[in-house]
């Protein structure tokens, strides 16, 4: 069976044999860092192109098709353009905070990558409070957005940032509660344990209807948390031109842009891990031969397949739905999603205690 675990152990053994333990650890850090940044940049390019192609497909047009075969190098060309562009800082802006904000947003997105299991035995940091870590770190990104909006000294940016603040703080609750409903089933916060607990079937199938409800709530809430349409009030092109990043240009804008896509990837990866089994292949109870066949598909393909399916779902939302109004957005969270997910959590706890799940 093909597995990335053998590669990682091979590298670690070799490093430990060749260098002193401290130096080996240092090299491991470097390797992981380089890999993370490469993944980051690669994902950004792929997701931007994917978004444009999905949009084109939905909007009965072709999308980028001039740079490279089928327009594959379009995002690369865009990146080069953005790097070459001048990064303006407006006169009235708070220069330090203005320039700091994109890095905070970016850093948060990078940090959250750590506990995600990309494949079997391929995880940067198997921390035992993985889910808590993810939700704690990802809520920091609102600070970056508020900072960007405030420091820009632009009224549109300020309005966008304030909207974003209200939105992200409230939708955090629903994300947390729907994630909790899986935690009560697994009894562990570690992402690796959660994946392993889905050995005989994914939670969305095993957890009855409450699991499906919390999956739906999770998808809605993370769409809102990543500021994607139909919840893109922070940007709201037709109302606030570009919301909190109105004043940003060049690479500083690109960092916000990239962070948005990485955030989508992360929330979809978390969603895939919690509800769809992460890198775990599609297993059905004790159908040994069927499960064995499924195991032949490499685990990273399972992981990326599920994640990209969820990403496609979120992109589909964006190109189909109109935007909500700010009061409707908060109503949806506080009057509908939050009570439903609270009730759902209680139901899920009951199922977990009674052992009714499969």
């Amino acid at each position, binding site marked *: 069976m093909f597995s990335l675990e053998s590669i990682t152990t091979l590298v670690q053994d070799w490093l430990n044999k060749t260098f002193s333990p401290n130096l080996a650890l240092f090299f491991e850090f470097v390797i992981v860092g380089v890999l993370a940044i490469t993944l980051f940049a690669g994902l950004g390019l792929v997701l931007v192109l994917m978004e444009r192609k999905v*949009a084109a497909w939905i909007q009965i047009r072709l999308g980028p098709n001039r740079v490279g075969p089928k327009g594959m190098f379009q995002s690369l060309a865009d990146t080069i353009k953005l790097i070459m562009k001048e990064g303006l800082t407006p006169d009235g802006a708070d220069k330090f905070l203005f320039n700091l904000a994109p890095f905070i947003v970016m850093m948060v997105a990078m940090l959250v990558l750590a506990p995600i299991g990309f494949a079997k035995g391929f995880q940067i940091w198997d921390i035992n409070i993985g889910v808590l870590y993810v939700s704690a770190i990802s809520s920091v990104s609102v600070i970056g957005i508020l900072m960007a909006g405030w420091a820009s000294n632009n009224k549109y940016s300020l*309005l966008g940032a304030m909207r974003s603040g209200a939105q992200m703080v409230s939708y955090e609750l629903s994300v947390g509660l729907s994630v909790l409903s899986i935690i009560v089933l697994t009894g562990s916060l570690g992402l690796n344990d959660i994946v392993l607990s889905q050995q005989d079937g994914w939670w969305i199938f095993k957890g009855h209807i409450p699991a499906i409800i919390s999956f739906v709530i999770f998808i809605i809430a993370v769409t809102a948390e990543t500021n994607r349409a*139909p919840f893109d009030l922070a940007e709201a092109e037709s109302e606030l031109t570009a919301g909190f990043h109105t004043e940003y240009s060049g690479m500083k804008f690109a960092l916000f842009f990239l962070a948005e896509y990485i955030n989508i990837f992360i929330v979809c990866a978390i969603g895939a891990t919690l509800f769809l089994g992460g890198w775990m292949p599609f297993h059905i109870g004790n159908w040994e031969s069927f499960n064995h066949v499924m195991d032949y598909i490499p685990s990273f393909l399972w992981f990326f397949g599920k994640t990209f399916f969820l990403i496609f779902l979120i992109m589909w939302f964006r*190109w189909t739905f109109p935007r909500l109004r700010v009061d409707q957005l908060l109503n949806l969270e506080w009057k509908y999603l939050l009570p439903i997910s609270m009730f759902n959590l209680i139901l899920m706890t009951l199922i977990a205690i009674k052992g009714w799940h499969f």
Partner: protein
Amino acid sequence: MVEEIGKTVEGDLVINVGPQHPATHGVLHLVITLNGETIKKVEPHLGYIHRSIEKMCESLSYRQFIYTTSRMDYLSAHINNHACALCVEKGLQIEVPERAQVIRVLMDELTRIASHELWWGAMAMDLGAFTPFFHAFRERETINDIMEETCGARLTMNYMVPGGVMADLHPNFQSRVKNFLQLYKSKIHEYDELVTGNIIFQNRMKGVGYLSAEDAISYGVTGPAGRGSGVSCDVRKLYPYEIYSKLQFDEVLETAGDSFARYMVRLREMQQSIRIVEQLIDNIPDGEYQAKTKAVLKLPKGEFYQRVETARGELGVYIVSEGGTTPYRIKFRSPGFSNLSALDHMTRGEKLGDLVASMGTLDLVIPDIDR
């Protein structure tokens, strides 16, 4: 709080929407006083695209001035031209051949459909849905192609002249219009599926930008915006021109007065235009497409007024003639200007997002407001 609405006080957030802003679809400048997200006052500033068309018309002959009016409301260029041609014909008492009349009405209604298509796409885009724009353009392009073939232009057609139309119909005209009707009918359900039935869209539109029938009359709001408030103001029905009195179509009326009512009026008006086109497309009479007119037109001394129904409302053309070859004074009563004046009244006390929805349903074309 309530009594404060309408006044700018220290500490209010004043933002400029426009002259360059995605929501205004042109160079309209709105100075908006906000209290948080709530609108206290909307103050439109005009003049960014003023080309003094009315003044220019004074130095152009009665054949020439019509061409400048294509640039007023560029989405219903045919209907603008039509109004001017009708006004000149009224002064000269020219009898327009029936073929020309039918062609004119056909073109008017096709223009109305094309204009409403664009509005539908832009409306959805204002609310944050980008896809409907492309779906609307799929149909609109077909109409533009038909126009291009017959009139030689896609947007500023300049096809109506005093006495009839500039040229005869292209031989392909009938078959292409029939193809368009077929395409439109096979796609119309997508409009409801994609936008009208969407729960987010309905929540954004219903109860937003309310305009009562009394206010609509006092602000002079006409066209689909006025009919959304239940004001019967279809010039084609009330003051029929050309062959409209012989045609079977309904004046679309909604009584709710909110953005959704205005939206529904426009959607249903497209159906009525389709109905008119269907009635006429197989019954274009033979004959002249242009009446015999003198080389130089001279209107008798006097004042002439003609109103037509454009895609946006009532367009009035008022010509004062001193008996010369050029008009002494021309005044256009453009629907967009009056409709815009109601915007402040409609949006006070609502959220910033509602402004975009209300403005979208008024279907403002800025060159029509400024002229």
